[in-house]
């Protein structure tokens, strides 16, 4: 692909091929998900599944960067696919306007799952679906100036539920700030590629806490 020339020196020919054959499912096409989808398309992955049944609301527009005012009321997954397809970069984008519940079947060609959900109850369901399919899950979450990220690999790491003691976020509205969301989504995409390429120093059994108030990255060995 001609547009990938500038990233080519960072990867071997085989790795570039692995990226070009990669299929990623993005669960949630909100703040994290829209940023992840844009990045994964720019990296040149083969296929992206976008899963989200929700409709675009005005309060989404401060961080969900694939949508504008004219899109209010439209289904996120479908609108996101249209915008991404408009760039013409070759990645196949499939919109699945469904909720991730206990019955959700991850398509068989998915290599890896990116968590872009906005609550832990749904995340615990997602990680179970990923576990059933034997797929790595790249977890990320944000709150105001903060974020967390870790990689869950069935049979190799503890589950997200165990890691967080089954805790969930509070009932209050979670503050969300686009630059913070963007950084966390970018970290998840970097991790996605590293996991897919079997690179060293992935975040399996490590939780990375990002604090953009004091610019600290804190790693917890799990």
């Amino acid at each position, binding site marked *: 692909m001609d547009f990938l020339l500038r990233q080519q020196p960072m990867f071997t020919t085989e790795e570039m091929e692995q990226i070009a054959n990669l299929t990623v499912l993005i669960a949630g096409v909100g703040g994290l998900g829209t940023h992840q989808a844009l990045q994964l398309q720019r990296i040149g992955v083969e296929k992206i599944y976008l899963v989200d049944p929700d409709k675009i609301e005005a309060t989404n527009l401060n961080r969900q960067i694939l949508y504008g005012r004219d899109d209010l009321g439209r289904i996120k997954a479908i609108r996101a696919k249209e915008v991404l397809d408009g760039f013409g970069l070759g990645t196949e984008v499939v919109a699945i306007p469904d909720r991730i519940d206990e019955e959700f079947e991850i398509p068989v060609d998915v290599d890896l799952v990116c*968590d872009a959900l906005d609550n832990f109850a749904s995340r615990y369901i997602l990680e179970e679906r990923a576990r059933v399919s034997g797929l790595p899950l790249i977890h990320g979450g944000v709150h105001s100036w*903060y974020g967390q990220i870790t990689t869950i690999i069935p049979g190799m790491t503890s589950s997200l539920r165990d890691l*967080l003691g089954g805790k969930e976020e509070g009932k209050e509205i979670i503050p969300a700030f686009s630059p913070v969301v963007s950084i966390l989504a970018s970290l998840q995409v970097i991790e996605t590629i590293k996991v897919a390429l079997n690179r060293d120093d992935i975040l399996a059994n490590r939780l990375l*806490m990002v604090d953009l108030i*004091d610019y600290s990255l804190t790693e917890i060995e799990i």
Partner: protein
Amino acid sequence: MRVELRLFATLRDSLPPENRGVERLELTEDSTVDDVINQLQLPRDQIAVIMINGKKVALDTVLKDNDRLGIFPPVGGG
């Protein structure tokens, strides 16, 4: 014994702003993480992960002199 406590993300608000999330504690021997949480009256429903010196630990872990204790809430927006 002395322990350095760092509260992360939204838990920072449990300490005065000038602390910037960090408190140096003077504790009696055999104090546990649980004792620290009680002493500072930290909101238990907001505690997801506890770390000592970079490693995840349980609530009943006994602290040692110069330990660096970190407490993290679930960070769950998207």
